[in-house]
């Protein structure tokens, strides 16, 4: 499984994702420069966290115009695996590869902490090594993670099983307090209709080694390895 980690100007979790794929999973991994037009034959594209272009306009709004995004779109359209983490999720929303948009967190503050999320759909390429309803401890760090969609979109997303992760309490219950950023229906992660494009706000690469306090992020990353063709 060859991973490609996209580097936008302002990406800052690119080296963390790279480390998790290459050093922790032991998979061939390469950086993909945003100005290039070449996906280098990767099997999975990761859009990492960070502040692409400083996020001065709207999170992810400028990154979607990067030259490489043309190739990423085409790759996704052919069923290629694309994982957007945090700012990468925001970029996927801006690219319209995933539905909805991000608002500021409900408390209007940047939020960095360990959270728990529940696997809502274990039949995606990003969750197939998870148990149904499994609760994962994975940290978040974002300002704009309050997912929103208009009612008809929300219904469609829910009805087609596109919600992959929801914020929950450690026991797996959905509570207002556990929905740390105020996301609609506590959405923490989504897939597209084809199931090959996934975005999530929590950082699986930050929960991939015992020394970091949780290895639950590996559930997501290792699921991808089961997709080897």
């Amino acid at each position, binding site marked *: 499984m060859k991973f490609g980690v996209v580097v936008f100007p302002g990406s800052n979790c690119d080296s963390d994702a790279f480390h998790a794929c290459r050093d922790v999973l032991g998979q061939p991994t390469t950086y993909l420069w945003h100005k290039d037009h070449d996906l280098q034959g990767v099997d999975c594209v990761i859009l990492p966290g960070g*502040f692409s272009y400083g996020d001065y306009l709207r999170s992810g709004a400028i990154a979607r115009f990067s030259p490489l995004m043309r190739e990423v779109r085409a790759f996704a359209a052919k069923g290629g695996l694309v994982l957007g983490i945090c700012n990468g999720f925001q970029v996927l929303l801006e690219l319209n590869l995933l539905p909805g948009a991000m608002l500021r967190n409900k408390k209007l503050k940047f939020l*960095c902490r360990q959270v728990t999320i529940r696997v809502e759909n274990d039949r995606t390429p990003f969750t197939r090594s998870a148990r149904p309803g499994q609760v994962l401890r994975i940290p978040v*760090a974002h300002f704009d993670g309050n997912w929103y969609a208009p009612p008809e979109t929300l219904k469609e997303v829910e009805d087609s099983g596109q919600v992959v992760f929801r914020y929950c309490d450690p026991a797996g219950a959905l509570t207002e307090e556990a929905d740390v950023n105020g996301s609609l229906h506590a959405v923490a992660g989504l897939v597209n209709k084809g199931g090959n494009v996934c975005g999530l706000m929590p950082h699986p690469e930050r929960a991939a080694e015992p020394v970091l306090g949780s290895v639950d992020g590996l559930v997501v990353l290792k699921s991808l390895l089961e997709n080897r063709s």
Partner: protein
Amino acid sequence: MKTRLHDDTVLARHNLTADEYGLIVKLVGREPNLTELGLFSAMWSEHCSYKSSKVFLKTLPTRAPNVVQGPGENAGIIDIGEGRVVVFKIESHNHPSFIEPFQGAATGVGGILRDIFTMGARPVALMDSLRFGPLDNPKNRSIMEGVVSGISSYGNSIGVPTVGGEVYFDEGYSLNPLVNVFCLGLAEKDKIFYARTEDAGNVLLYVGAKTGRDGIHGASMASQEFGADTEAKRPNVQVGDPFKEKLLVEACLEVMERRIIVGIQDMGAAGLTCAATEMPAKSGKGAAIDLDRVPQREEGMTPYEILLSESQERMLIAARPDQVPAVKAAFAKWDLDAVEIGAVTDDGRLTCRFHGEVVVDVPVSAVVDLCPAYKRPWERPAAPEPRAAEPVPPPSDYADVLRRLLSSPTIAGKEWIYGQYDHMVLTNTVLLPGAGAAVLRIRGSKKGLAMTLDGNGRYAALDPWTGGKAAVAEACRNLACVGARPIGVTNCLNFGNPEKPGVMGQFKETVEGLSEACRAFGLAVTGGNVSFYNETGATAVDPTPVLGIVGLIEDIDRLVTPGFKAESDAVILLGENKEEFGGSEYLKLIHGKRGAAPPAVDLEREIAVHETLLEAIGAGLVRSAADPSEGGLAVCAAECAFHSPEGTGCDLSFETDLRPDAVLFGESQARILLTSRPENARRILEIAEKRGVPARIAGTTGGRALRFRVSGRLLVDLPVAEARRLWTNALPDFFTPEKRPS
């Protein structure tokens, strides 16, 4: 005497004395023009020249076998073995943060980051030491919110984790908040870069943001007291652009990694002037600069403005002519310009041309090295409250005292602050903020890095010498509690106006205290920062030494954390309880007094206690460790309970002749509260005895309450959940109008 070119008003505006002006005339060989005067004004400011502090700073120990670079460069460097070094420094951004809290704090972060990556190190951790006035004052709340969001905005965006720090609240900081920012970077030992130009003929390249009119005379501003016109100085505060700096970090580290430059320095305080004089001065060269080529954000800027602007995110690079195309290409990749603005010369002078005319022509050494050093008059500071030694009445309800202490902003949980900082990016953070020290793993090594910022201004106000020693002792104790040995020191010394003998006396004694303590621990100070003039009107801040000490953990798998680990573990107290109330949070909060003297510091005992702990940790006997500091033993034990995932409590008892409030809430030094499996307790006591350290089993962990008994009386029986709620909510409640304490 013939008429001077610049009258007293001009000199006063440049913060230069008549004597200093006379010296400048002598060094330049003529009267300086206004631009040259501006250059000297910035570089001879207290902030840049350390003219009042130099004579005392010289007494600090700066050598040790592991020191690769001591004071005098952008940051200090310590060897950590395996071909790696750590590069670290602390800087103050007090004055800008008072005038414009968000940008002041943000650019403080930007500035210290540049000091680190300019040496070839990748910044991997930030910490902040903050001081604010009491939070019942809306102005203080707004300063704190601004500072915290400023730090958060810059650090989060650039992707360097803010892993720890400390915050205190006291009246003295109301009009003088302190914002000290620490950064640590990792580098390979053979890839360190310095601020030099090397040979004549080398090219000077300007990289990064364009130059604007912001921040002109920031260094001089930081060298004056504040008065009624402070608000008018807002335009002097620079505006930060973390995105631009992120690009700069990547591009600069790339050209250093490829060794296609010879030297580099950031344009921080005193801007282009500082880089264009210090770099050639260190190589014994000069520089010829064409100011028309300096990228400018605004039209019509004068040479004076171009040279003294403190616009952020700018660097000066020296490269050989054959390296220039590669450097330009590397910066172009990141959409940054690298512009040739001048060349290195052999004449030892800085010459600047503007519109074809020479507008500056001065010897660089005069600007950089020849600022006079002052041995300012000092006097032993008087004790602030001479009658404070009178005894206070013992409390009637000890549990209530504990509740109030846990709710005091200085002691309360700080998640409201560090939750706004990305403290995990780069995936090295092993011990999250909230413990005494922050801990990072080092990828590709078994070792770990611990770091802490410490300094208690109240102690130093009562006795600067002891306060200086206490800051070092506490920092080393915090490191020992995670199993780390201290390896290097940086310090930020925050004081009032050094022209007042009382302030100078505080400074002198503080430096003596911390110098003595660093020597006792065998530690070198590798750099730091002095911030004087922290006073508004007649009020100066408490003398506040902030020590940043870095420690090394040989085996990260042996990391010890503060939380209780299990029920029925033995709780052991290393060190001695004493009847010392002075400077304590207890005395201040409950009795409204500061006291006469801070807790005494016995360095020999302190070191023996740390060695006992480190030996016990090395033998795998210790399950948790924490040091009683503000709020004493009771608060320390409570925090160990809060850090345990299950909320495990403890039952401790002390047989003593001391006053119970001294035992529970006193802040005596050289104490550590640790836990071990019951069967290992004896071995720990044996290690302590061998090292001459008093130690005893104080009780056991377990239950869901904090129980403290003194001389047989159960004085506190407080549910952990209730205590944790108070401790957790105290800070956020101040920022929630309906919950704010009146």
